[in-house]
């Protein structure tokens, strides 16, 4: 009998702590499947962030380092400079990457550091309880923007993929989403591409994955998928923003 679906070797059997309907678990699985398919599990060092995915080091079945808030790209730089022939990735949320760690991601990308960043954007702070993120949408209600994000007071949703794609260092920057099966398949392809380009030593690669937060958005898991499609795709268009030859 041909096995068409199995548990990825690159994931541990530890049960996810994520809320029902959160897509972190799904995104973890996509990365693990890509690691399995590329047969890189034993050559990979992952960098976990602070935030909802802080325990990522318990889920990926590869060597992992925990980083302090926002500094995963600097930690990854240190690891990769020691082991240029290993595969290194960071897994970061929007508070981590687009707020406290903006400097680290911009400069790692600009240096063309040859690692891969998986940037999970759910437009809100999850772990700390639903506060406004730099990626929070206009008029989106959060616990620190209770009447909706006011652009005059809080600035605009930050578009990291667009920003980083104008730099010379990155080799591949794409934004994908996981709100339906079609997009999940595309997301996996983008993640695989990013890892492959890293293996080919092309430079910095990042995949921004639009993700859900039913708990802090205050909607059911199914509605959260719809909310993502209806509200986030216009502000954060899905595209390959940069790809070098």
């Amino acid at each position, binding site marked *: 009998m041909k096995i068409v679906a199995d548990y990825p070797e690159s994931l541990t059997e530890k049960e996810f702590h994520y809320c029902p309907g959160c897509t972190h678990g799904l995104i973890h699985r996509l990365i693990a499947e890509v690691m399995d398919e590329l047969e890189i599990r034993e050559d990979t060092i992952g960098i976990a962030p602070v935030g909802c995915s802080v325990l990522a080091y318990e889920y990926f079945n590869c060597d*992992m*380092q925990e*980083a302090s808030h926002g500094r995963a790209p*600097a930690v990854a730089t240190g*690891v990769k*400079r*020691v082991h240029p022939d290993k595969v290194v990735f960071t897994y970061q949320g929007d508070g981590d990457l687009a707020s406290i760690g903006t400097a680290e991601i911009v400069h790692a990308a600009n240096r063309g550091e040859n690692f891969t960043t998986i940037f999970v954007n759910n437009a809100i702070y999850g772990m700390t309880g639903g506060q406004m993120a730099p990626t929070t949408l206009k008029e989106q209600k959060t616990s620190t923007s209770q009447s909706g994000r006011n652009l005059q007071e809080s600035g605009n949703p930050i578009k990291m993929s667009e920003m980083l794609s104008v730099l010379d260092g990155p080799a591949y920057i794409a934004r994908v989403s996981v709100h339906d099966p079609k997009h999940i398949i595309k997301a996996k392809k983008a993640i695989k591409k990013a890892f492959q380009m890293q293996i080919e030593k092309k430079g910095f690669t990042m995949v921004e994955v639009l993700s859900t937060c039913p708990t802090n958005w205050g909607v059911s898991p199914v509605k959260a998928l719809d909310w993502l499609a209806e509200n986030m795709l216009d502000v954060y268009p899905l595209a390959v923003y940069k790809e070098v030859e």
Partner: protein
Amino acid sequence: MEKVLMKGNEAIAEAAVRAGCRHFFGYPITPQNELPEYMSHRMPEVGGVFLQAESEVAAINMVYGAAGAGARVMTSSSSPGISLKLEGISYIAGAELPCVIINVMRAGPGLGGIQPSQADYFQAVKGGGHGDYRMTVLAPSTVQEAVDLTMEAFEIADYYRNPVMILADGYIGQMMEPVVFNKTVNPEDLAAKSWATDGAKGRDVNIINSLFLDPEELEEHNHDLDRKYQEMKKRENRYELYKMEDAEMAIVAYGTTARISTKAVDLAREKGIKLGLIRPISLYPFPEKIIQESTKDIEKYLVVEMSMGQMVEDVKLAVNGQRPVHFHGRTGGMVPTPEEIFSVIEDLWEE
């Protein structure tokens, strides 16, 4: 071995190379710039990596990554830059990673000035960053000692899997003195680090981490760390005594200030004042035992620092109220002269 004339900052850098350090991450700040500048050409020469980070925060986190990946790694900075690195230093200590951090102190607080100072003593020896952590802190008083302690610092860091700080002041960094490099370590000869994250081929995965959500586990971790710090306290005590054999009064000073104080001791001896010097070399662990033992002969202590008075607290703890402990300090980048220290001693002697 050949003697070479080198500036302190450059000599420290060369010592790190000789100690097998092949990764350096830093960010420019006066008065330690010659150190990264030297590394920027020396590291590529020996097949290593020099990287000028975008900030001190990034630099120390690169050190964290590289240390976790198993490398001998160093960063250097000066006071305000070290403040920025403290979060990372706490993580490095929490995750039990070895690295060497050079602080060539300048005067503060805030932007302060660029002249020498010793006002980062508390920051270095009391933790500085958050949580219960300690690191071995070594304070050289000559360029040769800076070289020797830097080389030793890498060994201490690896032994305890803990950051080690060389706490020098702007004088040590900027002065030129002849130095000898006594040995050269080939990084390939170093013991393998079985805990490092270098790919899980043929073994269970390794995780570098300092997060313990279960309070019982975190308490246990803190006790584990403390056992290590207690071992440091037993093994890493370093100090030097100068004319203490028959001394009735003692100066306690470290680094450049200790060096100046030896002249004050000589001046006092010329006048028949029985003065000696206790020079702590390890500031953590603090050589409290030798100070405590000296209370049987020493009637008065004078602590001399280029600060408003920081190490004086540790001296008082060691003396434990048995003898009076006085303090003389210069700050803001001012350096005490031997004559100035001697005049304070003369007053205390006559009291």
